[in-house]
């Protein structure tokens, strides 16, 4: 028995020494032009995955030679710290952090290695940057704040009689609070009223939906991680109750929401890749690169939902819109 515990102890010590001594993957001479990028993603879901893929594809398109190390924290906050510290230890050339908590951990871990963030709705209140125009530090990136005014307008374009819009949001997500408040600010100007329901658990979504379907004329889905995970359910309930749904981003539309005039996380990732090139290849400092909102927005709609809601496709709204696959 004593021998067994000795073996375990030895095994543990060996493992620790092995990892401790794998001192920063030193880039060998012939790899000098390859940049090492550490990607830290907060959790798994389509929007964040798109932001990552867009970034990787964008770098390829720009001809930047990179070696990528990807780590997903699976929503575990202490893990974001460990992953960030690992990248610092590995002396990567750039850290790409997807989502607010990941970016905050990266910022905490280093003030020297450039950090690019994406899928952060409000970088200023998350204190990632001093301001969008002058980030002032080693952190900059792209915000996923969507053109909400254009999106809410779509409700009126589709049905001028629309008055009340329902929004479900996760009270645990600071970005969602920001969006709900923004919606409430914009809505009156468009002749709309927001009815919001906050939830803290994904299991609350069916009840939250049931509570508002009779009170509203349409549902607006914000870029909220929890809502994104249950978007199929939201669109199903909306169709059952003949409610128009407008999304804050296009991955919602793929899952059944009627349409959006919004950002694509994939394109946002590519936008961030451009910033990465400026830092790695052009030698710019992150503090000189203003943080950006999504440059391109596109109108996409879901044909199946359109038919289920029996909406007229000849409506002007769909003129410059694309069907989503």
């Amino acid at each position, binding site marked *: *028995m004593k021998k067994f515990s000795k073996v375990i102890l030895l095994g*543990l010590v060996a493992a620790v020494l092995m990892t*401790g001594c794998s001192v920063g993957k030193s880039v060998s001479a012939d790899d000098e032009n390859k940049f090492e990028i550490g990607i830290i993603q907060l959790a798994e879901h389509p929007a964040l995955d798109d932001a990552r893929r867009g970034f990787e594809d964008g770098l390829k398109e720009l001809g930047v030679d990179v070696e990528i190390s990807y*780590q997903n924290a*699976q929503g575990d906050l202490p893990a974001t*710290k*460990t992953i960030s510290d690992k990248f610092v230890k590995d002396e990567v050339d750039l850290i790409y952090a997807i989502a607010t*908590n990941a970016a905050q951990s990266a*910022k*905490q871990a280093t003030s020297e290695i450039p950090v690019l963030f994406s899928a952060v709705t409000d970088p200023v209140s998350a204190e990632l940057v001093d301001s969008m125009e002058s980030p002032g530090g080693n952190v900059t990136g792209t915000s996923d704040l969507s053109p909400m005014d254009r999106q809410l307008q779509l409700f009126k374009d589709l049905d001028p009689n629309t008055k009340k819009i329902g929004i479900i949001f996760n009270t645990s997500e600071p970005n969602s609070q920001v969006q709900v408040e923004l919606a409430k600010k914009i809505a009156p100007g468009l002749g709309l009223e927001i009815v919001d329901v906050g939830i803290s658990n994904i299991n609350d979504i069916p009840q939250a939906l049931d509570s508002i379907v009779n009170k509203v004329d349409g549902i607006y889905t914000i870029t909220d991680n929890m809502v994104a995970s249950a978007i199929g359910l939201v669109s199903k309930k909306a169709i059952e109750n003949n409610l128009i749904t407008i999304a804050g981003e296009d991955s919602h539309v793929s899952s059944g929401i009627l349409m959006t005039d919004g950002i694509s996380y994939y394109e946002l990732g590519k936008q961030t890749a451009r910033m990465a090139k400026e830092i790695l290849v052009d030698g710019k400092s992150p503090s000189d690169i203003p943080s950006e909102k999504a440059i391109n927005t596109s109108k996409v709609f879901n044909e199946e939902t359109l038919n289920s809601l029996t909406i007229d496709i000849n409506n002007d709204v769909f003129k410059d819109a694309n069907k989503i696959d």
Partner: protein
Amino acid sequence: MKLLITSLEQGLIFSILAMGMLITYKILDVSDLSVEGTFPFGAFLFARFISIGVNPILSTLLAFVFGTMAGLLTTTLFTKLKIRPLLAGILTMTILYSVNLKINGKSNIPLFSYRSIYDSGSTLLILLIIVLVVKILLDLFLKTETGYLLIATGDNEALVKSLGENSTKYKLIGLMIANGLVALSGALMAQYQGFVDITMGASIIVVALASIIIGDTIKKKSTWLKNTTRAIIGAIIYKIIGGIAIDLGLNPNDLRAINAIIVIVFIAYNNAASNLFRFKGKGGVQNA
């Protein structure tokens, strides 16, 4: 090496959480699930105090003090309202979720612009000192009359009552200290990671219980290794294992499963080792 230090630092922060859990889970034999709410409670409290200008050390202490209130709530629920302790803890956790959001009005509070308790020196050293102080104070407390009665309440409540003591009073003290420690751990974590977030408490009970169980497997027979020391070592080992899993660059999707598997391996070893020991003893008697 840096990764080892990070894991050690996180292990030390969670060891305070584990020591708190030790009091309720091991000593009092009460399953207090409110930790998931108390941990961020400490963090949000710290954020509130530091944002109104209180210095970091005092803010951290205040987080401990107010954290004890969570223990008061849970105890009140199961003594005055006769709600089962397990459910009482869950109810406290649920209430704390809303309370946490109310304290600062936001679910995520960055702390980058504030001072922290780690500013005055090496983070590792400061954490070591804090953990040692907590451990020594806790050990001393458990040796006092109140401490002994607390341990007795967990072992044999009927005995305590027969001595004419109010066992509920000791449960209350135990739960308050435990929750205070959990909140303290939360405040330390907040300063360590640089921000407070409402999701900080998720799965924290796994960390706490795993730390205690892992700590139990170390030299099971030796009695000189106090249970507080075990909790500390257990938390550190658990975090180091997690750090190794991340550093090995394993498939990110498997990270959580791997953490869980490692805990299972330790528990299995724990059980196998104790069975082996019993078997050896029996053999001796039968052969005689």
